[in-house]
């Protein structure tokens, strides 16, 4: 067995971790339409990446790595209420996305050395999508940081405004996302193979 198997396992679990975290953040900040729209959209990308990378991983043997799981557990701690809580959530999502990104970088080198054209192409496509996730996270943090960090909060309004949406106002796609979430496994309970 070569080390690439372990790296692809790392990527598979990291993408599951990222996908679940994106959905968790989307649900927590469901009153921020742009956040839940794009975060649920990206969760599907990451779930797709996990499935795709698994196909390759199987060909290289039974690799395993618990790093992503441990990273996921270490992140998303503390109060994550509106404003600064959202910026912190986006910050942690960026950390996970960077982790995935470096996984693609390392695996791409190995795939090239192995002259595995199919894997090189697949990593190229998935890595480009990870770049776009990272670019969006950076954009969202840049757009929200000044208001969240430079303006004194008004705690009562923040509390009221971060209550979960009434179920009746949550569109159907959100519910579908919950099903997807169940399929992926609950947030940070994702085990490597």
């Amino acid at each position: 067995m070569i080390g690439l198997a372990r790296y692809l396992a790392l990527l598979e679990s990291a993408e599951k971790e990222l996908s679940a975290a994106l959905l968790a953040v989307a649900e927590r900040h469901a009153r921020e339409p742009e956040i839940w729209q794009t975060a649920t959209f990206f969760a599907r990308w990451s779930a797709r990446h996990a499935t795709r990378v698994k196909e390759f991983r199987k060909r290289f043997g039974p690799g395993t790595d618990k790093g992503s799981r441990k990273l996921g557990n270490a992140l998303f701690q503390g109060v994550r209420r509106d404003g600064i809580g959202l910026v912190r959530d986006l910050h942690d999502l960026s950390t996970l996305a960077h982790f995935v990104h470096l996984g693609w970088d390392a695996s791409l080198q190995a795939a090239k050395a192995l002259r595995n054209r199919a894997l090189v192409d697949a990593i190229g496509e998935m890595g480009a999508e990870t770049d776009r996730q990272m670019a969006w996270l950076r954009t969202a943090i840049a757009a929200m940081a000044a208001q969240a960090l430079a303006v004194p909060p008004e705690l009562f309004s923040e509390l009221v405004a971060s209550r979960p949406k009434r179920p009746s106002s949550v569109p159907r796609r959100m519910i579908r996302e919950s099903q997807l979430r169940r399929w992926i496994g609950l947030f940070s309970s994702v085990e490597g193979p």
Partner: protein
Amino acid sequence: MRDVVGSYPPERVEEITNVPQALLREAASILGNALRVVSSCLQGIYQSMQATAAAVQINNLHLIRGLIGKPGSTVFQMNGQPTAQNTRECGADGELVAFRNWNNERHVEELARLWNVEPAKIPHWGPPTHAMQIFRYVETGSIRLLWILATNPAVSLPELARVRSLLRKKGLFLVAQDAFLSETAALADVVLPAALWGEKTGTFTNADRTVHISLKAVDPPGDARSDLDILLDYARRMDFRDKDGAPFPSFTDARGAFESFRAATRGRPCDYTGISYEKLTGGSGIQWPCDERTGTSRERLYEEGIFPTGAEECALYGHDLETGATITEEEYRARDPGGRARIKAAHWQPPYEEPDSQFPLWLTTGRVVHHWHTRTKTGRVRALNDAAPEAFVQFAPEDASRLGILDGDLVEVESRRGKLRLPACIGDIAPGCAFIPFHYGDRAANELTVTGWDPVSKQPYFKYAAVRARKVKP
């Protein structure tokens, strides 16, 4: 673009859009072969799912066929409101004056020099905060003073129950500046009465870049003053100063504001330096760009196929059309288009709310020809009001007969956010759809619409929501 479009053969597009393949092929053949094409689009595109991506595809069609910058061929990406072109040029949309790029330090420095202020005084630490985000900050309490000028969010924004509760919120100091006591002004702590267009002097620019002067005809009634006078009074009372201690802004009237703006357009794509109040008053409108050296205006842009896309010149580095992520200066410079147009494509994404068994109809909102925006003015014109006195809901005959609804029946239309009772109007609409005009404050279509917006333009989604309808007793 070839890769993206290649994955949407007519069969798949028919599946997504319900537009028959034969018609798609016919449209493609027209657009592919026509020698001249003029396209114009408006809110139907801008307030739909993937609005910016769709608007960009219209530009793409013209670009790849070279149907731009020549007689009979152009694109009109229209603005929904008469002064919306102005606000884009002068920076009132939150962007910087004369299409300057907030992300380009040299543009910010140039503007700071023109205004004689430190660059740090000019907000450019992030993208402009759009209206929907401002309302979210009101909701979370980090905005506690909101000053609304010449618009009526209590009728025009989506999900009105939410908007009303925000505007009524304890702890929010709300200022409304309008010519009439609109639904929004009625909720305000302070109302500043403002003059209408005939009661003040200023210029307007339309979507084909023609600048017109509008001279004051009558004095405003009562205590009403022009928006500019109110804002200048505020600036003086706040004692805003430039970096030499002189009052800021330096001008004191509309003509002075025009001169200040004119100086800021020098060398920019919207060069106004050859346009003056004298020239505008003497004849008809004048199109920009019109620079002071030649004094002549240009009827067409892009005749040579050169666009203001150079990294040093462009107003924005652009976005990922599917996610709204901004492109950084470094990324843009690495592939500097340097005057070439940029072709961008995006994959189809389904809307965030679609009809289902509970809410089986698509709601789309829009206008009637007799009214403008929330009827603040047109609702006070007898002829217009008589012609279109009240809101209605429009159904296709198939849907109406299934629901047992006849023309004129009272119907309850309900979404996940609210409900409305409206008279029905049958016909002239696609099956499966319901249309409600958004103008009417007493029974506003926006009670039903979704809070959500395009990731690039930030315009709300007014063109789709899922609703159900049933006949009710009057």
